[in-house]
């Protein structure tokens, strides 16, 4: 059987039904364990004090804000190339989850920035590109809501998604591109010198797993809702005609 068959709406509803509770439960367990470990069982940083505990929310949410847009980009390209309806609906379903992650990253970043940098906000390359990404999420969701015909909406939002992916990438690599501003480089790195200390790294890894799983669970749930909404709309149109 081809991989594409799993994305057939009926098959998709079939396999995602049993997967969903598992995804939500494992996401919940990872988040509770990771946040508990990070908040209660890790020491303060010698420079940042207890504010280092914000890392368990800020880094995973920022990571998912960018990766959610990348997932939307892949789904949009599949829609544009293969006209696969479930992929367009999955991209639409991911946007509210992505914007929530972006909002968490922006707000926890601002709260963290005040004691460390002396300001909630600075027009730093990474912060600015993240704010633009947030605006792209808003625009993407508004465009879906503004167009009645679902195929036209999917086409136009896919194009917007491709354009926005420049800012998603920019927000990831802004620190490296400009090498200026207040924001530090990556907290996670294969380079041992650059990576956060092990005492913070392992609970952070559990929190990242929790955020990834929560994102997957929410996108599956919301895609199922979108598939049902489309089916409902088709039935209502049929009722009106008869």
């Amino acid at each position, binding site marked *: 059987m081809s991989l594409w068959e799993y994305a057939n709406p009926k098959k998709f509803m079939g396999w995602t039904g049993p997967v969903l509770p598992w995804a939500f439960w494992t996401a919940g367990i990872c*988040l509770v364990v990771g946040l508990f470990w990070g*908040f209660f069982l890790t020491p303060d940083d010698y420079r940042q004090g*207890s504010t280092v505990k914000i890392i368990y*929310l800020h880094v995973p949410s920022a990571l998912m804000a960018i990766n959610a847009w990348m997932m939307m980009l892949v789904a949009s390209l599949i829609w544009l190339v293969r006209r696969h309806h479930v992929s367009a609906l999955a991209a639409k379903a991911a946007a*509210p989850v992505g914007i929530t992650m972006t909002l968490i990253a922006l707000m*926890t970043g601002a709260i963290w920035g005040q004691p460390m940098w002396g300001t909630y906000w600075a027009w730093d390359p990474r912060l600015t590109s993240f704010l633009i990404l947030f605006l792209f999420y808003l625009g993407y969701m508004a465009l879906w809501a503004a167009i009645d015909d679902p195929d036209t909406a999917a086409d136009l939002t896919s194009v917007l998604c491709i354009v926005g992916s420049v800012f998603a990438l920019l927000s990831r690599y802004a620190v490296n591109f400009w090498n200026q501003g207040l924001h530090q480089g990556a907290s996670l790195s294969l380079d041992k010198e650059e990576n956060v200390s092990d005492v913070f790294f392992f609970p952070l890894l559990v929190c990242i797993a929790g955020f990834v799983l929560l994102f997957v669970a929410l996108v599956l749930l919301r895609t199922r809702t979108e598939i049902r909404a489309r*089916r*409902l709309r088709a039935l209502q149109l049929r009722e009106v005609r008869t």
Partner: protein
Amino acid sequence: MIPDLGKYGFEVASAYAVSIVLLFAIVGLSWRQSVKQRRALEAAEARRHG
């Protein structure tokens, strides 16, 4: 049990509070929309078959 957050207690607590509220909001909203849509579809299919 509760760690001493020192002078940054308010910042750390508010970062956690904001994030947890937003996470619960997106989960709750998604769940509500899912239940609402499923019920509406079930009703429409019942009308169609009945």
